[in-house]
């Protein structure tokens, strides 16, 4: 029994269409709330962790240990005046942050989160082509960034947007090829090799152990997607002021900010699902969600530490890295995966 | 003040001071540069009320000593030495800005620190400190100076 079917059974007296609609609506609202809280927790955790790494204490004024700091910040952002540049391109300017946020939220709804005691399996959508859908949805976010950069009529924004597009093109291909290697491996054991849940459930060993090269390429891709250091060329603070989000303020800027941390959270979920065994753990006591969360937190800590340590890479060097190193590595990884699947049957 | 005499003397800390007429300035400096004084340390203009004294401090890395070359001008015009040292570019602009020495032959003699329409040269002894000027930015992003306190800050 999953969360989805439980909700469905409650409303089943209303007939098929009505109950399906209400079920998905309620589940989406639950997802939105849970995701928002999770992102806020991520930001809070980042700020605390950054502070501790930098020998500071971090937020500690609002609420106990500064726990309400993020709520206060969100309220501040909502209350702020949204300053609009006079020469903006109005529609894309206003749509861009919403696109970034929406893409993120749809991506969250596509992941399986494992089972959790009486709730059962936690997922919103269990699509048969989940992997393709997930990466298609993830590709919405750079469109939002591009729109934001071009429409704000600012040289910094434009350069930032161009940089982030150049960056996206150069890491997307290796990243997709390394995902393809997983699909290749999973296809030997499951007929639904594009369904995320069945890919994760059918593994013998976590794919990261079998494909360390794939993990490496995919992790770099996820860092670049979330665009934090070392791959934050798009919004590099010391060069382009704030990149594509320079001209945004108030809640529109807040959406970009949430989008960034949401992508980190989402990325760590995806990495731990695909490569670190996801919700599989040593004891099958409906603890899938807990396992997934633990793995995600470990990945998040690693990501934050990388963020805080690494300097920013130059954009032409990154494009070089993408096409000259990551692409061949991912192809080699794909060949290795095919070899392992065909001859050893892993 | 006494009459200006070209020649050489020792300064307070035992350093050579070469005094030249401003017509001979460029030739003297270029001769010194070929002798190894390749580092132009400082150009200073001193307003002596009835004339302006311009002092060049040079340093030689090989001999490890520095000397100063002095000249005077009565009409605040001095030949530029930008052809010898590129660092003289900004130094002369700074001296033009603050002391008001016009360097003849400078390629781009504009004010370095103050806005272009600032009135007076602050390091002149007759500069009126009571006459406060305010600075603001125009539409093009360039600074301008004004006497109106309501217009600038």
């Amino acid at each position, binding site marked *: 029994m999953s969360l989805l079917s439980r909700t469905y059974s409650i409303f089943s007296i209303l007939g098929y269409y009505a109950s399906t609609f209400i079920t998905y609506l309620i589940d989406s609202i639950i997802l939105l709330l849970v995701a928002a809280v999770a992102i806020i927790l991520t930001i809070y955790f980042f700020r605390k962790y950054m502070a501790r790494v930098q020998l500071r204490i971090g937020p500690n004024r609002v609420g106990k240990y500064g726990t309400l700091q993020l709520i206060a910040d969100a309220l501040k952002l909502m209350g702020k005046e949204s300053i609009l540049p006079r020469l903006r391109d109005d529609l894309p300017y206003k749509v861009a942050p919403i696109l970034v946020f929406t893409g993120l939220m749809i991506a969250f709804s596509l992941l399986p989160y494992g089972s959790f005691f009486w709730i059962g399996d936690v997922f919103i959508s269990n699509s048969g082509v989940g992997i393709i859908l997930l990466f298609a949805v993830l590709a919405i976010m750079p469109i939002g960034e591009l729109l934001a950069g071009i429409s704000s009529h600012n040289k910094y924004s434009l350069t930032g947007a161009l940089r982030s597009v150049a960056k996206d093109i150069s890491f997307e291909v290796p990243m997709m090829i390394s995902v393809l290697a997983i699909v290749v491996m999973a296809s030997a054991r499951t007929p639904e090799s594009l369904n995320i849940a069945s890919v994760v459930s059918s593994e013998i060993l976590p794919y990261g152990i079998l494909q360390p090269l794939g993990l490496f390429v995919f992790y770099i891709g996820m860092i670049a997607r979330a665009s934090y250091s070392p791959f934050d060329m798009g919004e590099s603070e010391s060069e382009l002021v704030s990149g594509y989000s320079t001209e945004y303020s108030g809640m529109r800027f807040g959406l970009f900010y949430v989008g960034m941390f949401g992508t980190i959270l989402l990325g760590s979920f995806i990495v731990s699902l695909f490569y670190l065994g996801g919700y599989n753990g040593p004891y099958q006591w409906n603890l899938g969600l807990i396992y997934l969360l633990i793995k995600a937190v470990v990945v998040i800590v690693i990501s934050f530490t990388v963020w805080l340590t690494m300097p*920013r890479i130059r954009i032409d060097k990154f494009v070089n890295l993408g096409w000259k190193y990551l692409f061949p590595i991912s192809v080699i990884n794909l060949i290795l995966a095919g070899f392992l699947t065909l001859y050893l049957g892993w | 003040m006494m009459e200006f005499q070209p020649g050489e003397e020792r300064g*307070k800390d035992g350093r050579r001071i070469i005094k030249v007429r401003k017509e001979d300035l460029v030739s003297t400096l270029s001769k010194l540069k070929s002798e190894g004084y390749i580092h132009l340390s*400082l150009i200073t203009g001193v307003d002596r009320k009835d004339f302006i004294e311009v002092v060049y401090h040079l340093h030689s890395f090989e001999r490890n000593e520095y000397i100063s070359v002095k000249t005077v001008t009565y009409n605040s015009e001095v030949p530029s030495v930008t052809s010898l040292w590129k660092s003289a570019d900004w130094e002369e602009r700074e001296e033009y800005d603050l002391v008001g020495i016009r360097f003849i032959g400078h390629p781009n003699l504009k004010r370095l620190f103050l806005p272009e329409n600032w009135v007076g040269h602050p390091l002149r002894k007759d500069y009126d400190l009571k006459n406060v000027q305010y600075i603001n930015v125009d539409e093009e992003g360039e600074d301008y100076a004004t006497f109106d306190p309501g217009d600038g800050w």
Partner: protein
Amino acid sequence: MVAMSDWVELNIGPHHPSTHGVLRLKARVEGEMVREVEPVIGYLHRNAEKLCENTFFCDNIIYFDRMDYVGAPGMEVGYLEAAEKLLGVFPPERAVWIRTIMAELSRIASHLIWLAAFGLELGMLTPFFYCFDLRESILTIFVEASGSRLLTNYCSIGGVYQDFNEKITDEVEKFVQDAPKKVEEINSLFIKNDIFISRNKGIGVLDKNVAIEYGVTGHMLRASGVEYDVRKAEPYLAYSKVNFEIPTSTKGDNLARYLVRIEEIRQSIKIISQSIKKLPEGPFFNPKAKKSMMIRLRGDGEVYARTESSKGEFGVYIVGDGGVKPYRVRVRSPSLRNLSVMRELGRNVMIADLVSILGTTDLVFGEIDR
């Protein structure tokens, strides 16, 4: 949108995160490439030279504090070298050694600020705080000795205002013991990082002759291959009595400048550890410049004194007319010359490189605009 071949004028600054205050760079940009850079300065101009003409010799120290505000005692030393020669009031032996220690501490403090900001410009968020943590122990010595953390006003004409006591020497010794380890730790975060090396190696190469032409001094000149350090070339304070080396490099790129500066920190720690051992007993001020004598000092003639500040050759030219106030004060600001060479370094580099070149130049605008 502009056509591909057109350049765009990009205004970097004066309100930009990486311009160290109030520098404005007019850059002509073609896509990512910067074709030409024209620095615009003067946003922090206070005309300290004019202010100095209207105050007593002893008061001018506070204006020099505010020039290189990240390493104030070094500036005070630079001014007093000139002023004391002009006035004929010389400090006793103990004050000379105390000034040497303070000048070297301020050099480390200034270099640490540079290191922190340089890391931040390259996108490294964390070393910033480690640098400030280490710098804090220097500021503790400053506040213990002079009563202020940043703008110390510690050195006075003919000595120093207050003596080094037992507690301060202990703090300095503790600093000398702890600092090398912390410096190496911070250095390892930079130098072992592959991206840091790739961002700096071969970037912003400054030719030796160009550097001399533009009057560049300090770490930039040394990184380009000229072994010129005023501390060796014309020893002042107690530098002739301590043992240290001048780091140089022939590469002239960003990485060479970085390495030269890190080595300078190490050498400064070496100088401090020697000086604190050699610190003699005795008076710490010249009685000719105490109490109401402070404002009665008269100077005649002209003196040009150079010191090696943390940014380069810092020269002060003072002309006196026999009065209690200087007739003319002229300051040779090393950062101004180091900035003027940006016109050469900023040709045909990428925007990201422009920022890192600007980072290694180490500008302090209190000193450039004065």
